[in-house]
């Protein structure tokens, strides 16, 4: 297939990958805000807020980048997804708005007031719902239930409301929560808080493994083609083996309290999961009938787009490095 087309598609996957390991973890932070328990509940919430505060807006732009490259590079695919998956996309948008606004309002609301607590709840609940919907949308695209034309009104619901998309949604949610717990284990500066998040990271990491099995089981029942796609080439098996090794390595590092190694392992694990999904889709953008090549914009558009992206990355990488260096460690309360 045309190298330009493949490169543009790789950029979308890379943007989604970066969104998952950065923005995704910000949602995960919201999940742990919701489940903050025990004598250190307030301090857990403070740590989460400090960790997310300076960076969530920048992290969020990865999603916008993925969308922009999708509609520039593959306009028919964008049109089809936004048409058929209107309902979950709209609900996800409400989640994005509620999460971002509530987080900001809580930071600048009256300190420790009842209103601040309500914003905290809105922030936490929308952090739970948004990744669930994002996963359901990707699940629907993978399951091949997003047709080119809506033959009936029912398709606006049946395309995404099903056991398989739901299982992928849950999987995405737990994945983000797991990432956040691992990051927070690294960023916590005192021993008790670090233990709190280490236990959460271990728990959610194990749950993620269980859910992976569950998603595959559901796929076997509902969309067996996905299992074929996931195991098509020897390469796929290698990828899955690497993913499993990263997962086990992360859990081991957490168990042995090597938090920085666990962070590397978790990022690797999540990235491999996303690339594994992407390769199983190839050469399709939307299963089962919209191939990348058929959805691609003319070569001139792709060339300019990739040129702009390359130039943008040259600007972006040093900026991000600077951002993370400035906020690498969370300020002591």
């Amino acid at each position, binding site marked *: 297939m045309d190298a330009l087309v493949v490169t543009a598609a790789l950029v979308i996957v890379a943007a989604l990958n970066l969104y998952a390991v950065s923005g995704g973890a910000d949602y995960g932070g919201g999940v742990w805000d919701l489940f903050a328990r025990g004598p250190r509940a307030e301090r857990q919430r403070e740590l989460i807020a400090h960790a997310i505060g300076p960076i969530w807006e920048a992290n969020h732009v990865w999603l916008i980048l993925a*969308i922009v490259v999708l509609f520039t590079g593959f*306009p*028919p695919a964008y049109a089809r997804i936004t048409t058929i998956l209107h309902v979950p996309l709209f609900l996800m948008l409400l989640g*994005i708005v509620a999460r971002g606004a509530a987080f900001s309002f809580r930071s600048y609301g009256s300190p420790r007031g009842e209103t601040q607590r309500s914003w905290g709840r809105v922030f936490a609940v929308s952090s739970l719902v948004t990744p669930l919907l994002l996963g359901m949308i990707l699940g629907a695209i993978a399951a091949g239930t997003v047709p080119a034309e*809506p033959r009936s009104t029912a398709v606006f619901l049946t395309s995404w409301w099903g056991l398989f998309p739901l299982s992928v949604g849950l999987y995405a949610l737990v994945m983000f929560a797991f990432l956040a717990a691992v990051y927070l284990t690294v960023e916590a500066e005192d021993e008790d808080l670090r233990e709190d998040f280490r236990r959460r990271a271990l728990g959610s990491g194990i749950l993620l493994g269980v859910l992976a099995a569950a998603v595959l089981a559901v796929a076997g029942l509902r969309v067996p083609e996905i299992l074929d796609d996931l195991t098509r080439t020897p390469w796929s098996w290698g990828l899955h083996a690497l993913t499993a090794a990263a997962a086990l390595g992360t859990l081991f590092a957490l168990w042995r309290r090597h938090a920085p190694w666990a962070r590397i392992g978790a990022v690797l694990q999540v990235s491999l999961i996303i690339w594994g999904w992407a390769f199983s889709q190839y050469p399709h953008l939307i299963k089962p009938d919209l191939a990348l090549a058929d959805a691609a914009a003319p070569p001139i558009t792709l060339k*300019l787009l990739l040129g702009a992206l390359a130039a943008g990355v040259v600007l972006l990488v040093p900026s991000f490095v*600077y951002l993370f260096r*400035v*906020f690498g460690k969370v300020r002591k309360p």
Partner: protein
Amino acid sequence: MDDLLAARSQMAISLMFHILFAIAGMAMPVLMVVSEALWLRTGRALYLDLTRRWAKGTAILFAVGAVSGTVLSFELGLLWPKFMEHAGAIIGMPFSLEGFAFFTEAIFLGIYLYGWDRVPPRAHWWAGVVVAVSGGLSAVFVVTANAWMNTPAGFDLVDGQITNIDPVAAMLSPAALPEALHMLLAAYAAVGFAVAGIHAFVLLRHPGDPFHRAALAIALLLGGPAALLQPVSGDLLAQMVADTQPAKLAAMEGQFETETGAPLRIGGLPDPARGVTRWAIEVPYGLSLLAHHDPQATIVGLNDIPRENWPNPVIVHLSFQIMVACGTAMALLALVAGFLAGRRRGMVLPRWLLRSLVLASPLGVLALEAGWFVTELGRQPWIIQGVMRTRDALTPMPGLTLPLVTITLVYMALGVIVIVLLRRHVISTVPSEVPV
């Protein structure tokens, strides 16, 4: 409600809401950077306090802008999938560039807002400069995409199919430069006057308070020149519209008959049924002069344009009148304030001027929204002028009234909350608390 009207209303509400936060993201960093530079130069604590206070306001506004902007990037497809299917490959370029500009803005705003005691003062100031510049660039890129919808370029239309795409030519469509210029100045004028009005309001109660005087001066330094320059960019834009979108110009001016040496109509109400614009003050040859810089130029009237290609002349004309009226008032006020500031340096500002500034506070935002009404409703019934009709771009998804109502309620709630928070953080200050 008809699905087409619902979708158009949802788009309108989303854009009207987002643009308020977008202009704050463009112009507030300019104010902060000026104020912070004054602090670095003079060491007066009030400038630092002012910078931090404005920064807090900006943080809230920017967060809402970031998420309402995300909503728009999806809504383009949720509501107008057929448009995006055909236009995506042509105008995706400016959107991707905007993505990077926004990225840069978000990164450095994070450093600016949270990095006060983490980066050296000069680096902090430069972070603010980057935010201001990338905020402006974001707007320019997005506006070029809109400009393309008004003056589509960079492709060939063969048997109704778009071919031979040239995204660069599309980005540099005839409307791109005048629209971008007009938008930038509008943002600076609107935010400058809005902020000036807020601080003038406090100064009325606490005359001579140095904190709010400094804030007022910086805000007017940005808003005043922008308001004075705006008529020039408006003139450029009007000539471009006259050349490329005769139906829009006719609707803006309530021009029904094709006329040589057409008058400029100030005020008045177009009556599309009768084909006349009543109760307007007519300036002879004014429109021909303004549109083509020639008193004898011919202006095409709506009657010579097929009815199915008409925009709504009532709304477009009235919006245009509102925009021009607000802009004129602001430019005059900027002149007066500039004149007084030159003569009475360091003296207490006259109360009538402060009162006028309070009254003028919402005018820039009003002009901006009205101006976008002119741009967008003036282009109807086209989503891409002359190429694709808005109704042909609509999603087949039924029941679009529900998302319209939902988004309206959500945005109304957010708007109220933002106002409450801004009141708490930026506006209500006891002057004595601020060291000078």
